[in-house]
């Protein structure tokens, strides 16, 4: 039987506010335990939550960026459950009236464009952290994270492979960091993914029973977890078994998913509107101010890069992988007026060097203006591609500006044709054997002669000019 995979993702993004969603505690990562947990965060009796305008604004930005409906009046609810890192005994979340409903995100998988629709996005508070290492057989509770603002972003079950799920998660990650509502740091838990996975026979209209994989904190784990889960579900069904609704965890060490809780132990959260919080109203003025301040979004920028700089759809997608990368490319492309060449250098030489040095684009030792200046020197014929790479190395080492490096290292491409002719003649005289082979019809011999000329010019000859001169001499 042929099976179809159905995946929907729930992503918890930590909003990039200075203070918590309902208190004035800091949200900075890595502080000593419980030093950023106020009376509200630890749920002392009598305290009241006061909503952070910054968190609401992040949610508005997101809603606008995905073309969603913003609920002008939205409501906070209590989600009730007992766990020691949730001191109130409930999490403040949004159920019936979330701030964001609908919207869509474009993804590209193997060259195919696809639109993934979103169901909703709602504001909520994070819980604290439970540390199960041995504290004399007890669990340690750190409430620094309690009350950190989250936006939970829920997709429709519209992805049909792990590759699509990863593409969606990446596109979402790019977007939330692009509009500055989340720092995107997956190691620190700022972007956590839950995947709802089911399979069904191809052609069947109803969905199969789903299992939810919790808390995936890397794109690699997301892919591995879904692939394993899909295989397991298909094998179970083909062996005549049934899939029971369940929550599972992915173990990166074994590459397997394992049951965390079954449907029988599923929580009954008894949601109800939180009487401590009034409904939230979004003024049109506020929404319009946020809309006006939004940066150009990745999809719009991709289209513009293709039109303005003549780069391919694929290149445009890579170059808008982050705002820093897109800004870098555009600065370099404007500096040299050569969009395609700038794209090749940014995605080629520069990316390779950054990867090797394990640096992000923001930490690049070669500035966008410098790369632009370098490309301009290729364009005006001063540098060959090969010499340009040597200048690039100089820039990387911090040896100065482009022209100064060309001057200091004598890397100028040979433009004096008299000087080149002299070298060509010397090479021809010294390589009679290759000349004869070429005349006898061996094309390879010609390449050998080009190589010799380039070598004799110490790489400074213009390869096209060398070709022309050699051909003329050998006719």
């Amino acid at each position, binding site marked *: 039987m042929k099976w179809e995979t159905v995946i929907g993702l729930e992503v918890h993004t930590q909003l990039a506010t200075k203070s918590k969603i309902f208190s004035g505690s800091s949200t900075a990562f890595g502080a000593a335990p*419980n030093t950023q947990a*106020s009376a509200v965060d630890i749920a*002392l009796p009598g305290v009241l939550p006061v*909503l952070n305008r*910054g968190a609401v604004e992040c949610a508005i930005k997101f809603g606008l960026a995905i073309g969603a409906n913003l609920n002008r*009046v939205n409501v906070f609810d209590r989600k009730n459950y007992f766990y020691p890192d949730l001191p109130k005994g409930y999490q403040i979340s949004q159920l019936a009236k979330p701030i964001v409903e609908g919207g869509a995100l474009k993804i590209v998988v193997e060259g195919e464009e696809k639109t993934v629709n979103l169901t909703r996005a709602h504001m909520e508070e994070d819980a604290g952290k439970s540390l199960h290492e041995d*504290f004399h057989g*007890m669990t340690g509770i750190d409430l620094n994270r309690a009350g950190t603002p989250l936006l939970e972003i829920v997709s429709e079950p519209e992805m049909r492979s792990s590759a699509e799920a990863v593409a969606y998660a990446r596109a979402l990650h790019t977007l939330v960091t692009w509009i500055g509502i989340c720092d995107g740091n997956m190691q620190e838990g700022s972007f956590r993914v839950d995947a709802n996975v089911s399979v069904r026979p191809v052609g069947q209209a109803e969905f199969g029973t789903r299992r939810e994989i919790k808390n995936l904190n890397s794109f690699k784990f997301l892919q591995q977890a879904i692939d394993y889960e899909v295989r397991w579900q298909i094998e179970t069904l083909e062996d005549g078994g049934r899939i029971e609704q369940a929550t599972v965890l992915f173990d990166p060490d074994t590459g397997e998913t394992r049951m965390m809780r079954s449907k029988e132990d599923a929580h009954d959260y008894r949601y109800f509107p939180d009487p401590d919080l009034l409904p939230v109203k979004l003024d049109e003025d506020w929404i319009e101010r946020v809309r006006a301040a939004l940066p150009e979004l990745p999809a719009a920028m991709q289209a513009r890069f293709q039109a303005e700089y003549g780069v391919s759809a694929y290149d445009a997608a890579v170059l808008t992988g982050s705002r820093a990368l897109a800004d870098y490319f555009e600065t370099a492309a404007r500096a040299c007026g050569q969009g395609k060449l700038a794209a090749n250098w940014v995605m080629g030489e520069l990316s390779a060097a950054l990867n090797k040095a394990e640096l992000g684009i923001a930490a690049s030792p070669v500035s966008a203006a410098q790369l632009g200046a370098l490309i301009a020197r290729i364009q005006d014929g001063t540098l060959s591609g090969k010499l340009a790479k040597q200048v690039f190395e100089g820039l990387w080492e911090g040896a100065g500006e482009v022209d100064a490096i060309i001057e200091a290292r004598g890397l100028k491409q040979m433009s004096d044709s008299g000087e080149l002719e002299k070298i060509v003649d010397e090479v021809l005289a010294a390589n009679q054997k290759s000349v004869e082979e070429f005349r006898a019809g061996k094309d390879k011999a010609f390449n050998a002669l080009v190589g010799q000329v380039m070598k004799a010019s110490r790489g400074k000859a213009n390869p096209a000019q060398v070709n022309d001169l050699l051909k003329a001499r050998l006719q």
Partner: protein
Amino acid sequence: MSLSTDDIKRIARLARIETSDAEAAATQAQLNNIFGLIATMQAVDTAGIAPMAHAQEVYQRLRDDAVTESDRHTTFQAVAPAVENGLYLVPKVIE
């Protein structure tokens, strides 16, 4: 609508409240009275009236995104039954 004893036991379990059979029976009678009250209210015609999420028809006030709290964990932890390295210690829970 009325609640069975099983409903009462289940609600009590969700709220982590230990309930004897006698207490459950008493609570069942009290809660069913409240349901009677709700049934009376539900008889009112509310067609065309938008549900309210709060008893007052006002909206949430917002605060600016600024850090206004300082570290008071030693004060808070003075009343905690068990503390170590700044962490609150609780009986082991693993889900």
